[in-house]
């Protein structure tokens, strides 16, 4: 039996842009993603199969055009993947480099259109907007069947600029075999024309709000309560629901700033499988591990002493009380809920992640 091919990861964080303007968050974001993707409890990519490319890995150059990381450093990774596929093909394992490719990019970006969205390289200038078309590269590798699964995460602005030079895809790959089952999941920090935001986070580190939300989701907050897995669908919903909570109100009301990511969940796939439960000594197989991500919710009642029921998404009562005070604090996992107080209008609310439940006001 042929051993399954390993997973690979390309993680890029560019903070130093002498030709444009420096950023503070991309290296923090890339380091965090790299730590997670190479951890056993995270993405599970062997460290030898993961490439971390950061601005701090290079000396500042005298001239902007010599600044690194540039396209060549990214191309080296693609060539490596191409070589692996060539080698596997000669070993009669098929033209595949690996099972799954994780791609993460954080830096300045632009997007004349989705297909041409790109991340600027460190040697980009206002005149020569050197970039990597991450979306197109992901599609090229996907169409060439180099991997069964390609996951792309891009934390970069998607404002439209007129004169960006798109990098040409030099790697010509034959079309993937029709028997190969391939899947994709792409998530961008901003929808078309919107700017991605980086902010100082608790602890002082500056991070992109997309990556901060993404990492919370990947570390467990986006698990499907029913299966325990983080699927393309649950991660999408999690990102959509939770990214804006980091934004100050002024940014939330600014039409130029992205409050939601652009997620393309082309296929049904588990991005992170359900945690494996501890094996039972005997008897039937253990149920999926419990999901312990629950969030604080405060129900504010018109008056103290009312009988309150909280129903889940199937109208099943899950919490009932007669709180002595007007405020009733409870903990709930992600989902939709209804507060029922006899004689009052029902209140439906959603809990989508940390801090999302907040305070639920029951109408008088």
């Amino acid at each position, binding site marked *: 039996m042929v051993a399954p091919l390993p997973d690979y990861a390309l993680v890029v964080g560019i903070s130093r842009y002498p030709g444009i303007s420096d950023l503070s968050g991309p290296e923090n974001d890339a380091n965090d993603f790299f730590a997670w993707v190479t951890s056993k409890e995270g993405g599970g990519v062997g460290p030898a199969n993961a490439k971390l490319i950061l601005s701090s890995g290079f000396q500042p150059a005298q*001239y902007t*055009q010599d600044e690194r990381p540039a*396209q*060549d450093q990214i*191309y080296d990774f693609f*060539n*490596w993947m*191409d*070589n692996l596929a*060539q080698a596997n093909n*000669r070993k009669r394992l098929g033209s595949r480099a690996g099972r799954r490719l994780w791609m993460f990019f954080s830096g300045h970006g632009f997007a*004349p*259109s*989705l*297909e*041409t969205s790109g991340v600027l390289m460190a040697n980009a*200038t*206002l*005149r*020569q907007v*050197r970039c990597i078309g991450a979306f*197109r590269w992901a599609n090229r590798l996907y169409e060439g069947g180099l991997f069964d699964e390609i996951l792309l995460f891009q934390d970069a602005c998607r404002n*439209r*600029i*007129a*004169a*960006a*030079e*798109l*990098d*040409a*895809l*030099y*790697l*010509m790959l034959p079309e993937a075999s029709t028997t190969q089952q391939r899947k994709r999941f792409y998530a961008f920090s901003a*929808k*078309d*024309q919107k700017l991605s935001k980086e902010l100082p986070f608790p602890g002082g580190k500056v991070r992109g709000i997309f990556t901060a939300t993404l990492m919370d989701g990947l570390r467990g907050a986006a698990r499907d309560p*029913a299966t325990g897995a983080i699927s393309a*669908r*649950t991660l999408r*919903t999690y990102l*959509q629901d939770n990214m804006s909570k980091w934004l100050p109100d002024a940014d939330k*009301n*600014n*039409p130029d700033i992205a409050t*939601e990511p652009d997620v393309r969940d082309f296929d049904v796939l588990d991005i992170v499988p359900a945690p494996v439960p501890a094996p039972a000594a005997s008897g039937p197989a253990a149920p999926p591990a419990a999901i312990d991500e629950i969030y604080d919710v405060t129900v504010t009642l018109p008056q103290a002493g009312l009988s309150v029921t909280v129903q*889940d*998404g*199937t*109208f099943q009562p899950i919490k009932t009380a007669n709180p002595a005070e007007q405020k009733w604090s409870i903990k709930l996992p*992600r*989902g*939709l*809920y*209804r507060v029922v107080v006899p004689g009052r209008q*029902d209140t*439906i609310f*959603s809990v*989508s992640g940390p801090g999302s439940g907040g305070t639920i006001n029951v109408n008088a």
Partner: protein
Amino acid sequence: MSTPETYVLSVETDDRIAEIAVYDGNLNVVAKGANRLTEKLPGGLYRVRIRVGSSTDERLVALDRDQSVSFGPVSFLSPIPLKDTEKTHEYHMAAAVRTATHFARDPLGAGASIMVFAREWSVEQNMSGGNPAEGMALLDANENLLAEIGNEAAVQRDRDACAGWRADVKPGGYFIRLELGDADKTVLLRPIFVSPGHQLQVFCLVGDHVVEEQAEGQTGESATKTRRTIRRADLANAAIAISRNGSFDPDDRRTRLSELGCNALAQSRTIMTDTLIDELMQVKFENPMLGLFAAHLLLKDRSDKELFRIVTTNLLTLLGPDHPDLLALWWQRGDHRRIGDGRLHVLPMLRASWNLAVDRSTQAHDIFSLGTFHDKLPRIAPSASWMVLMDNDWAVSDLAIDQYLRARVKMQQSRAETIAAIDAFRKQYVKRAYTAVRELLPTGLSAYLPDLAPEIAIAQTGPSGEAAGSPPVDALSKSAGPLQSSEKADLARNLAIPVDVLDSILKRKGHES
């Protein structure tokens, strides 16, 4: 155990291409649709979410009986001052209406008209200082200056400023030019085409153009550079509408739909709803821009050639046979009907149409008749759904081509190294296995088997005696050879330049064609 009761959830959206998603109580998507959706679902709590352009709206629903949810228009971003969009003021709508009908400079021709409307937008409504049309001009298809729009426009400097301009012209192709007024003399060109009897309307929001300028008297990479922000119209992202009666209606549902179609095309979203297709199929269908976007979306989303032919035939009635965007679409019909001489005489307005032209250039010759403008095609810049050119010598595609050629050589070198290493390893492996077998045999038998060592030595070092694992880059650069036709077609599509233009650039760079 009893089966949960089911109820009907009906969702209706005001925007015909709104995407709808229904989430269950665990926040899993259980139904999807566009424009309207009717779904039988088990009783429970649901979230209904719609997406319009880059904007979203949502409602929470308790499905304890049949329920209907309806969404009004959702605000999205558009340069056109349409009602229910994100960057719109009532006074901009009114000014655009006035420009379309009342503003008139001396006619530049007859049979059609062009309107340009540029505006500032800010939350504080205090961008009243400048002229939003500054630096804009109208050129004919041969790039001759026809009008300095920036000087002629009626500027309204109340709160967020706006500038409107309109002129009667003869039908045909034109350029809107924008000069940034920087030291590099940056010039953007937007091709437009106006059909007989139509008013072509160009709408721009003003944006920041950051330019870098060298200190006086200094040159080269070491020169001190300063950055300057110039407020000028964002011509690259200007929206275009076509009016058949010479007016502008900020409440027009079809113009709104056309803007959403433009967005869907740029963002690769599939939104060809049945109701939209029904509308396109109607003989009375009368919004040419919506028709152009819809035809492109049909090409991407559906393989129904018959439907595509009906839509393009309807567009022929609306736009006439000279329209470059229609011609690019016409090539995709797959029948032998031709319009005009089958060649592009002016540039199309839509980037998607240009992509079709580039694609055709990989299979056919003689599809362009652009005169001297042909030389400027390497200056085409990527810009959303629209065509735009950076009309400067430094804006050609050479940099990307150089990078491509270098990366291609490096990739080929890398592949050759890998294959050589595998072959060497394989031969080494065979040699070891062979030697092991030989040693196991009785001496009398093994003496009949030849020694493989000399062959292995050649395989490991290559015929020249140099290590096979590291061939020199120069040698590989030569052996990389000319681009295959498939590579050339791919590169042309990537850079959005026709194959013949790419050929001439490659020749100039000393590459065989």
